[in-house]
């Protein structure tokens, strides 16, 4: 069912205009010995009715568990209007706004998005988005290397409290360009990066310092001290933030004496459904002075021939289709549709709504933690101030508990031990504003019932 409109008479007329005897003749420049056969391993085509049934069966098999997990992807309520509008064909099936006059809708959305991200992060310039939070961090570090001309080392101080998968992605993308990641230990009591971890690097050639906010354990770092330390040591300060947390906390542009230089993060909590990990979008903002090093598309407001304001892609001289091998990045697409969703999401929530979502998520996670630590064999691990995630230590391995909870329709959290061996039997949990008191109770009761045999053993 390939969605082809041609009638037999169309084909006949078209071949006549081409002066070709058959459609097959159009492929006569391909050497015969290279032609492929029937593609036997591709199944027969399906009608929409048939594929609908199949996809419903597959979806039903997975069900809709109760999520008490975050670890980089957060379940938030998304107003119905957001995806109703995003799914309009005019947004959904348009492409990159290369023809600006016929793409003013998409371009204005991106300009509004850029304005919102600058506002949230307290910085001057935003790009039109990157693939996701992890790649945004990688791109931010490559940008820091270009921007920090005084530093020759390409050494990046990377707290161990940054999401392990983000550190892996940075390694994949940046290792071919000679970046060296130096790990900063966290304080086992607070779960945050102590100034002492930085001390041994003072006076050394450091290109940038990454500052997670909150960090992977859900704790807020000492962002002012870290930012000031970076600047005092000739390094750029790169913030890695959850945008929802910024509704309640000081903007990265105001951290320390001068503010951070670059801010990036995962945009998923702003209107992207969990959707198995994507599509999401990464965002990046920076100080004005660094704009020419910023990767990805940027939209600017300008004037048309009649002096009327309009929007266009700008500063394209940075990009691969102009600079080719000398471009600031090979990035071509952004995540336009998700940016559209985020812009509508932020517009509908507004400042009061985003703050309320942040507060409710914090409060629910606190309720969850308070209830869980009442269970025998469960204790909190870190004392640092939390946003909406927390680390709990169990008196037994957590993997079997997660699996058992899964069988009861609950995604119970993220097992930390495989990525942090020192965090034996530790679980990272999260309860966003989407969880009710009854949900929290269900989780706690189910877990309590599952733990009993292990505790008794």
């Amino acid at each position, binding site marked *: 069912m*390939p*969605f*082809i409109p041609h009638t037999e008479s169309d084909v006949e007329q078209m071949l006549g205009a081409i002066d070709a005897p058959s459609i097959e003749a159009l492929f*006569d*420049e*391909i050497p015969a010995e*290279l032609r492929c056969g029937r593609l036997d391993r591709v*199944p027969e085509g399906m009608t*929409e009715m048939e594929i*609908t049934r199949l996809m419903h069966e597959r979806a*039903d098999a*997975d069900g809709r*568990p109760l999520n008490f997990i975050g670890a980089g*992807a957060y379940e938030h309520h998304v*107003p119905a209007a957001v*995806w109703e509008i995003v799914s309009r*064909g*005019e*947004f959904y099936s348009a492409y*990159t706004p290369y*023809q*600006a*006059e016929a793409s003013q809708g998409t371009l*204005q959305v991106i300009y*509004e998005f850029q304005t*919102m991200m*600058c*506002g949230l992060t307290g910085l001057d310039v935003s790009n039109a988005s990157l693939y996701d939070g992890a790649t945004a961090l990688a791109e931010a570090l490559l940008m820091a290397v270009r921007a920090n001309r005084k530093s020759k080392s390409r050494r990046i101080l990377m707290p161990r409290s940054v999401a392990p998968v983000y550190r*892996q992605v940075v390694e*994949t993308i940046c290792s*071919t*360009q000679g970046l060296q990641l130096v790990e900063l230990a966290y304080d086992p009591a607070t779960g945050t990066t102590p100034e002492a971890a930085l001390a041994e690097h003072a006076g050394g050639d450091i290109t940038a310092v990454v500052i997670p906010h909150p960090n992977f354990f859900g704790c807020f770092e000492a962002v002012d001290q870290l930012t000031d330390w970076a600047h005092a040591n000739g390094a750029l300060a790169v913030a890695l933030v959850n945008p929802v947390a910024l509704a*309640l906390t*000081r*903007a990265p542009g105001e951290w320390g004496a001068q503010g951070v230089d670059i801010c990036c993060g995962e945009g998923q909590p702003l209107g992207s459904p*969990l959707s198995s990990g*994507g*599509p999401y979008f990464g965002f990046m903002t920076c100080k004005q002075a660094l704009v020419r090093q910023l990767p990805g598309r940027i939209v*600017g*407001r300008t004037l*048309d021939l009649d002096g009327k304001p309009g929007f*266009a892609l*700008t500063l394209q001289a940075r*990009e691969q*289709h102009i600079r*080719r*091998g000398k*471009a600031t990045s090979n990035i*071509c697409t952004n995540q*336009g*549709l*998700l940016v*559209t969703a985020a812009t509508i999401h*932020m*517009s*509908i929530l*507004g400042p*009061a709504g985003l703050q309320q979502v942040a507060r409710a998520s914090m409060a629910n996670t606190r309720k969850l933690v308070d209830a869980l630590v009442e269970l025998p064999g469960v204790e909190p691990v870190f004392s640092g101030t939390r946003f909406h995630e927390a680390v709990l230590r169990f008196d037994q391995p957590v993997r079997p508990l997660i699996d058992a909870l*899964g069988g009861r329709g609950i995604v119970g959290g993220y097992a930390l031990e495989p990525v942090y061996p020192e965090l034996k039997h530790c679980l990272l949990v999260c309860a966003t*504003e989407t969880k009710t008191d009854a949900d929290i109770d269900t989780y706690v009761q189910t877990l309590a019932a599952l733990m009993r045999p292990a505790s008794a053993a």
Partner: protein
Amino acid sequence: MTEPLIFEHSRPGRTAAAQFPAGDIDAAVPAELARTSGLGLPEVSELQAVRHFTRLSQRNFSIDTHFYPLGSCTMKYNPRACNRLAMLPEFLSRHPLAPVSASQGFLACMFDLQEILKEVTGMKGVSLTPMAGAQGEFAGVAMIRAYHEARGDTERTEILVPDAAHGTNPATATMCGYVAREIPTDANGDVDVEALKAALGPKTAGIMLTNPSTLGVFERKISEISKLVHQAGGLLYYDGANLNAILGKVRPGDMGFDVIHMNLHKTFSTPHGGGGPGSGAVGVSERLLPFMPIPVVGKAADDSYRWLDEDDLPQSIGRLSGFMGNAGVLLRAYVYARMLGRDGMHRVAEFAALNANYLMARLREAGFDPAFPDRRASHEFIITLKRQNKSVGVTATDVAKRLLDHGFHAPTVYFPLLVPECLLIEPTETESKEALDGFIDAMIAIAEEAEADIEQLRGAPYTMPVRRLDDVRAARQLDVRYQPEAAA
């Protein structure tokens, strides 16, 4: 008529309160962390937001509203079922780290998609994780690098790239720590094999090729190129930008390519979304299997599915995204692939080629010059306005902008860089003959206008929300965020 910025609709204290958690919530961050500035978000009602963004949507051309023959971008119909079914609530609410036991439905879709893509490309393994074509390219070249390094072959520092290649190719080579070396194209649009031979040597890590090339023609000497590159110890990278042209006709694996990326947002019809999300799955030959980016979906002996990660692929180039790439896009591609099925795959390339060759023949008959008049078009072709530019001064931009007034999105212009005043036209298989005929009529009318009144043409477009925009001003007087104080 302009649509004000959403910020201009904002009034202090206005909210869409039905959308956020109710009540007084007892939660605050310590004073030293607390927000001291505003959030910079608008304060509007839900209706105001809905109306504003609906109006903005109406200021776009899109596949659903206009013929969109943007060369190299495969702007084919995006079946609505793909969107609807990828957005079933169970798929939307599935957390990426949910236990595998509660994810068998989703994983089955991903495994099936891997198998289908392997079959249509002739590759031995597929990883779905790259999030866009450019990231697929990165993964591909990183695998080439990993392969050479694993063999202790560390002297290879160059990636060969034809001069007609997409800009992402040389940018990717650079990102992977290679020097990109350009190979010229001959007069018929094929790679200059003598120049290739001269460039190949112990420094060659590989070559990046698009076939059909960005010139809209099939690279006829591909088998010879493949042999030469392999003899020199290099690997062949296939840029899947133009896979739509050959789907079901010839497979990159059979042409000798070692690694490919596919643009699922082109060939497999996932939405372009105003510039993303894309999806750049990679396929590999036998020798690159150990290096695939993780995670990949595997199937156990008991027919259950699971993630393959570092433990299964210890030589992997690593992870490219926070989770497993653009999963929702992959679901859309899967639905599309299942609807097409085996026979549908063959028909995609057939009708894409029929439409392209028909358009080229008719435009040629109308007095336009194909860049490669002696070649078959693939799924796209190039018209050059070099002659008309000399005679009446018309540019590719003029034609592109005037097409908008006629209700057609413009083709790709000024790419590939080596053809002067070019229009790269890709109609795709989903357009009807009537749509193509309408486009041809518009092109004829524009050519006549160029002869009769070039000034009128240079002023186009006239019917869009804005007229031609001042790009120089946009770059020099940078205005990339709304600042009410500056606007006043």
